[in-house]
């Protein structure tokens, strides 16, 4: 018998926690600010959820407004998050310091 969907989802959740800890623990302190803003962009994935609920048929008007507000917030989260992270990371350069000896 196949387990309930929620059990499979819990399995995925727990594995994600371990993967998360594993990859994050390898990020150097130097990059912790971009890490924060990068993960910030990643939780903008909630936009997917917002699109799904905003796309449901036969909604009451106020519910549709709420769902579209969610789309608006999540869109800003995604776009702003990735752009600001990119802006930060482009500044990290490895120029050898000029030595005049």
């Amino acid at each position, binding site marked *: 018998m196949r387990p309930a969907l929620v059990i499979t*989802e819990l399995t995925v959740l727990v594995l994600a926690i371990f993967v*998360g*800890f594993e*990859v*994050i623990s390898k990020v150097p*302190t*130097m*990059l*912790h*600010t*971009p*890490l*924060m*803003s*990068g*993960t*910030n962009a*990643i*939780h*903008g*994935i*909630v936009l*997917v*959820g*917002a699109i*799904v*609920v*905003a*796309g*449901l*048929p036969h909604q009451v008007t106020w*519910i549709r407004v*709420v*769902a*579209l507000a*969610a*789309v*608006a*917030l*999540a869109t*800003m*989260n*995604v*776009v*702003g*998050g*990735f752009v*600001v992270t*990119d*802006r*930060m990371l*482009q*500044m*990290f*350069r*490895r*120029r050898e*310091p000029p*030595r*005049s000896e």
Partner: protein
Amino acid sequence: MTRADAIALAYLVTIVTFILALRFLSSPTTARLGNRIGAVGMVIAIAATFAQAGLHNYASILIVMAVFAPIGALAALRVKMTAMPQMVALFNGVGGGAAALVALSDFHRVAPEPGRISFDVGLSIALSALIGSVSFAGSLVAFGKLQELVSGRPITYPGQKLGNGALLAALVAVATVVLAGPQRQAFVIALILGAGLFGILFVLPIGGADMPVVISLLNAFTGLAAAATGFVLHNDVLIVSGMLVGASGTLLTMLMGRAMNRSLANVLFGAFGKVQAGAAAAADGDGAVRSTTAEDVAIMLAYAKRVVVVPGYGLAVAQAQHDVRRLADELEKRGVDVRYAIHPVAGRMPGHMNVLLAEANVPYPQLYEMEQINPEFPRTDVALVIGANDVTNPAARSDRSSPIYGMPILDVDKAEHVVVLKRSMNPGFAGIDNALYTDPKTMMLFGDAKDSVTNLIASVKEL
């Protein structure tokens, strides 16, 4: 392969890109590529979602996205690097808010008029509404504190913890009603509003210096809220991405606590920086402070073999990072070995100082983390402390009564000479006197950090 299968596979691709994005963050050379891979993954996920069968309202969704995407981009392009913590708080807040609103609108779908929703879906809706809303309101308060719209000082009043505790208990009760009782939207709305209030009350008593910990924690919250909506919508990409963020936020919060030698409970409930009477008064010693001039410091720096710059938040506030780099360039021209010592909590969030110095074109191999640079201080001629305070306080090593006792610090007092650039003798964020300032080998150069550094550059050039 059905359309649903194809969409699920596309989501799997997105998950892989997100994991790669985090993986590539392990080195500054690959980090930018990683972020872009993650962005591509996000586009794939959005496109796949639009391809979902039975989706309606394309026009209104696309219009909303087209209007708000440029707003997000513009904010991200305009923000100053010193204001990065606020920006992260703000984007984090809107993400949490989105999760709460998704929960509210989806409740309508899964809870038809009479009838009950299944336990797991109900729990997920309650959790994403609760956590998302706390994250939204809490992040906005954090934003307000960092932007100085709200006082950065801890705001406390009698009965605060009791009141917050009671509110939290009430929220759990409402959530239980959502799960078990009549399927009324009003309860979900009450949950969201109550949680928002809790978010505000929860962050208000936390001092401005601890905001990075709060933001990191709320970042984890938003991730959890996103994962919870994944359970509502049965969507794996939401579950995995949300939990990756949840794990990251949790880990960062723990690392920050360790860097300050304080427990999370102490950060959240300690109202740190409020009053630190007893301890501060004891640590004064003879209290003699030696003040110096830019000319004297310039001579010391120019004829040193090795200078270690210790930047702190004061440098960021004064926007002096570019001038510091110019000073370093001048010194390097004279053959001085210039390094930067970065404390894990320098700046306003972990790694913030690295970003500020990167912005000023300081090559990252010159930036040293605390463990790497501490053994070097005894071989350093001059330690130049610019706008850093508590992270250099030797009391953290020796004075058991100090509130920061046990916090790992930069051992600047082991350098041959110490020069501290400081606006005034006011204590730092933690409100503690710094014994470093009365150390006989320390000289103080008072004034705005930017002015002082500009004067130093001029004086070095004249030599």
